[in-house]
């Protein structure tokens, strides 16, 4: 099975993220693979371990994205495509258009991604790509079974339960993080990653002009980033629960209008 896993390099949201004049400060930020995309890599590796075939990573962005791709290769992916893209951020629509170009003439059975990127929290790119490629989509999967070269069964976490979906390949599928626990790269994996093939393409190699890139290729733009109004710590109640709980509840009723 040939699987393409688009991975996005994002600021590590576990660390402090600073904003200056409406922009995210990139200086001193450490960049990582978006965590849901790591889940997708792990899922893809498990599938190829069972059925054979290769996992190809796809990263779109500046030079530093090659580090994320190397990390994914170190986890066990077989090869990588880096679209060296210096035109600045675009939106999910713009990235999906670029990905659709990358897919042209390529051989794949499955495109597997995270359900959303950790920086945008948008969750738009994969389904847009599916539409552009006229492929079926299943998003937010928590399990797969009955793996075969031409299809599989997917379990999607829906609003009212787990939807069981049979899908014919090729298809676009996105993963929920409860699908698996991504493996860590081994020392040997890291050494081997250095020798794995990485294809670097420019947007013009893909036949894309300026009007399709950056803000021009976007349908939306971010005007500014802000720190949300941070919640302030309220009142503390310390002491014996038989005293603190009634006190807190009394205030909840009188001040915050709790009604049960």
């Amino acid at each position: 099975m040939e699987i393409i896993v688009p991975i996005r390099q994002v600021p590590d949201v576990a660390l402090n993220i600073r904003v200056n004049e409406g922009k995210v400060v990139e200086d001193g930020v450490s960049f990582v693979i978006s965590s849901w995309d790591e889940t997708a890599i792990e899922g893809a590796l498990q599938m190829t371990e069972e059925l054979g075939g290769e996992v190809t990573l796809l990263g779109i962005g500046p030079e530093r994205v090659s580090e994320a791709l190397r990390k994914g290769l170190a986890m066990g992916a077989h090869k990588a495509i880096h679209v060296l893209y210096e035109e600045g951020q675009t939106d999910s629509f713009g990235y999906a258009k670029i990905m659709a170009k990358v897919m042209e003439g390529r051989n794949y059975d499955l495109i597997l991604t995270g359900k959303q990127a950790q920086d945008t929290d948008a969750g738009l790119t994969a389904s847009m790509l599916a539409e552009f490629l006229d492929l079926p989509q299943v998003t937010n999967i928590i399990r797969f079974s009955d793996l075969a070269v031409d299809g599989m069964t997917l379990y999607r976490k829906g609003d009212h339960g787990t939807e069981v979906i049979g899908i014919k390949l090729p298809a676009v599928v996105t993963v929920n993080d409860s699908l698996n626990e991504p493996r860590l790269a081994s020392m040997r994996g890291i050494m081997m990653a250095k020798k794995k093939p990485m294809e670097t393409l420019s947007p013009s190699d893909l036949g894309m002009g300026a009007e399709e890139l950056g803000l021009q290729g976007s349908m939306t733009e971010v005007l500014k980033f802000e720190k949300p109004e941070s919640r302030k710590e309220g009142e503390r109640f310390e002491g014996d629960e038989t005293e603190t709980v009634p006190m807190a509840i009394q205030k909840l009723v009188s001040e915050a209008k709790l009604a049960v």
Partner: protein
Amino acid sequence: MPKVLVVAETKNGELKKPTLELLSLAKSMNLQAESVLIGKEVSSQADLLAGYGSGKVYVADDAGLEIYNTSKYTTLVADAVGQSGATQVWLTSSETGRDLTPRVAARMGVGALSDVTELEIDGDNITATRPCMATKLVQQCRFTKDGLRVISIRAGAYEAEEASPQTADTVSLSIPEGDARVEVRDIQVEESNEIELNEASIVVSVGRGTGGTEGCDFVKPLAGEMGAAFGASRAVCDAGWMPHKHQVGQTGTVVSPDFYFAFGISGAIQHLAGMSGSKVIVAINKDAEAPIFKVADYGIVGDLFKAVPVFQEEVAKIKN
């Protein structure tokens, strides 16, 4: 003149609250609204949509629409957009909305803004505020090109007003075939009459501090007594103490109830991402240093096993 098409969602044949929130929002902004109602045995809900201010209601009522199906739903929404001449499509950011929003947008050849918490509308110029970076930041966005605006709005971001049903002006949509490459076979539902997390006005959640399934079961009756939905941290769901559908947080359900009670939850960033939009947060934790206290309006430093029975007594007193 902007015209909004609201994609209605139902459960067990009844409209869900987030849908009513969207129609109430359209009304409060003096926008013309219509809606599209998709499902099995859902037609009866058209009158309530009308009561909430929906002009025409485009209805697709079919046994084959019982379980969500990307392909069929996308075709139906696109059909309704075409017939209504809507300039905006609003969805809720439920799992259905998350799947459908980008597919509908791409089908119409436009972009989308998802999981919006604040909308400013001036004609079809829209400024949307939405959380990003695991809610560490918010971003203000806008559409840069002409065309249809496709937006998903977070449940609880706006209030639903009260309204009573009115006779609806309905249009039946023709039922599409669906994509033969996808077979939606079944839905595995855990039977429950529990209140849904993203619709509840009170949520009681439990964390690893409960120590196990028994500890979770110890807190659960309190949720029932308060008419609250029952949530959990990921630590609890991963350990198998509670099913995953209870998970609150960045990767679980995002909730913004009037009251959020956290029993034995430390307040990790990913958990906060799912509940820091709550109006009032109450934390019960035995560690005075727990980060949850930084966001709690009422913080009780104590043992949940001692606190829960006192809570139950006090709640019983309020009820009487």
